């Protein structure tokens, strides 16, 4: 039964990790714009210059 304690702490650590990741993502503005990255991918010029690098 005591194994549950370990599982709970592991799950908490995992969940807090995700919460922190989400927090960071919001703070760094990843959710500010959900549309342009999808279009940016199609930019021919940029992907070319990246290939050259």
């Amino acid at each position: 039964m005591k194994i549950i304690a370990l599982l709970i702490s592991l799950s908490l650590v995992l969940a807090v990790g995700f919460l922190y990741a989400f927090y960071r993502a919001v703070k760094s503005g990843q959710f500010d714009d959900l549309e342009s990255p999808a279009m940016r991918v199609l930019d021919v010029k940029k992907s070319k210059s990246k290939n050259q690098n």
Partner: protein
Amino acid sequence: MKNAPLDVSLKYKQFDLAENFNQLVDYQNDKLYGIGISLPSIHCSSCIELLEDLPSFYEGILSAKVNFEQRKCIVTASKELPLSFVAQLLEDIGYPPQISISQKLKEAEKTVNKNNLLKLAVAGFCFGNIMLFSMPHYFGLQVANDAFFARLFSVLSVILSLPVVFYAGRDYLHSAYRALAAGKSHLNIPIAIGILSLFGWSLYEIFSGVGTGYLDSLAGLIFFLLIGKWFQHKVYDQVSYTRNVQEFIPLVVRQVNGEETIWSRIDELIKGDQVLVKNEEIIPVNGILSRGSGLIDYAFITGEALPEQVSIGEQVYAGGCQKAGELTVTLLEQPSIDKLWSTWSNQTEKKDFSNRWTDHISKYFTIAVITIATVAAVIWSFSSIEKALFVFSSVLIVACPCALALSAPFTFGNILRVFSANSFFVKEAEAIATLGDIDHVVLDKTGTITENKSMSVSYVGSKLDVATARAIKALATQSTHPLSNAVAQFLSKYQAIDSTSFEEIAGKGIQGEIGGRIIRLGASQWLTATESKGTAVYVSVDNEVIGHFKISASYRSGLQGVLHRLGKLVKLSILSGDNAGEKETLKEIFPNFFQLKFNLKPQQKATEISKIQYDQKVLMIGDGLNDSSAIEKGDLGIAITENLNGFYPGSDAVLLSDSFDKLPAFMELARYSKKILTWSLVFSLCYNVAGVSFAVLGLLTPIIAAILMPLSSVSVVLLDTLLVRIKSKKLQLI
């Protein structure tokens, strides 16, 4: 790489001024600056491609990143490339930018919302996990009886509850603390007490081993409070009213354009333009005095009572009042309406629009709620401590009178917006409450109920030679009085003699020494002329009356309808500085005048108003400059103007003459606002009484209370907005 030359439009030049620049950019250092620029015309993926390619074809732009959802481009540029160039470049490639400081402030608000969302996420996370740890206890599972697990779950719950209380719930605690520290009352105090008592009691139970605490309820409570707050913001954004009325004000000034003067929008003026200011007018712009002699009264800005002598080449400041005739100001910088507006709205508070009743209510409310909660908790504690605690916090939370505090600003804010859309600009939202309380409207005659545009002038008397006509015109152009303007208009083919020695005597006329002769222009009594019938301006040269300009003005179209509609709402009076020639006509138009008085000097108008004020609230409507003392005297003063050329000191609102016929509708809407407020009050009181009674009886858990609380605010705000809209539609204002 060489930049193509840019022809930078002057409207963008203002961005380069240090004070504007510092407010507009998001960050800057010695070498570069970054700014998010709104580009409404972004519409497709090619736009992103083009804009983000800017650094490669324009030197100085270091990076460009598009945010498609917000139609924004975040540009980093070298300091060597001024912001005005960036703006012009964007316009040239087809994306006219929208850059303004007020927009910048709106964005700051968005950051607050983002933080609220993060708090919501943290609260939700912790709430869910604490819930899980409480499950065994609720379901009576065996684990819950195991001492080790019970201990583990409790400790984990305490750890998880810390971010909920001190991060997610910080706003409530913080504002309550600040209010208490300042010895004031705040609507968040009961909520903070509720949170802290639940938290404290739970900690006590857990660490003394008496029980498992109520941290799940606490986390749920804060979670739902935050959801409510978020929902409120969503709703408010939908129904939000414009806070910056000044953005809508089509303020105009007299611009000197070669020989003639034209009316120009103040926001379209540029550096170097010349602006004409007449006697007694407020200077609308900062600039250099380039013609005329300045005797400028800065009392509205500095409180300095003595006017300041300003000679040609010296600087004059927006907001000062010219006291010595016409002058011309050359602009030094792009004028800003904001400055002028704040001069108007920051005038020493002279009228108390006492509508701060919510402050008083909230004080007693807080005390009452805490008392009820404590009493109920004490009674319940005889049967169960747990129940007592729940009742205590539910009462504190469900009773939050946010709805009370919100209904007034939302109602007035929405009305303000409707008024502005109809060219009626009110200085303060609270003035609307006063407008609703008015029971006597006093009107000026010339320029208020008559139309300046349609004045017809004829000259009667001994023949005017050219020199005299030019001298008269010189005098007439100095004043802003509508009759004086009409005379100047009549003499438009003559060129005015340049003159600075003249004196305007309020209520009498204007005199000056021109070409060695003393010329007077004014009322018949002043010049001791034989009075003729109707409105007229008399002329004397060296104390000898040579004739008069007969002026007939037609009444505003729809005047009869306006007066009859107003007459149903309030008592009406006319106080006029002219002679009684029109008395019978006015009586025909509207027979039920309370008072019709003529030949009044400006000071006498103010005295008449204070007589009426003995038992009635008076609204004075008149010409902003010539009636300023009367307008100031009224409980509410409206300056009426054909052209919105400045704000009038002492007035609480400015009405464009085109909207004169809507005046009764404005008054009806203002009156209706009181009804709306009463209804909201009744509604939220009912809501609170019902909520508190359920809570006292122990039928509400704190979580349910937290869900109900924001719902009441939202429904009140929606109700207010809806009622204002319906009424405005009915009155044909929107």
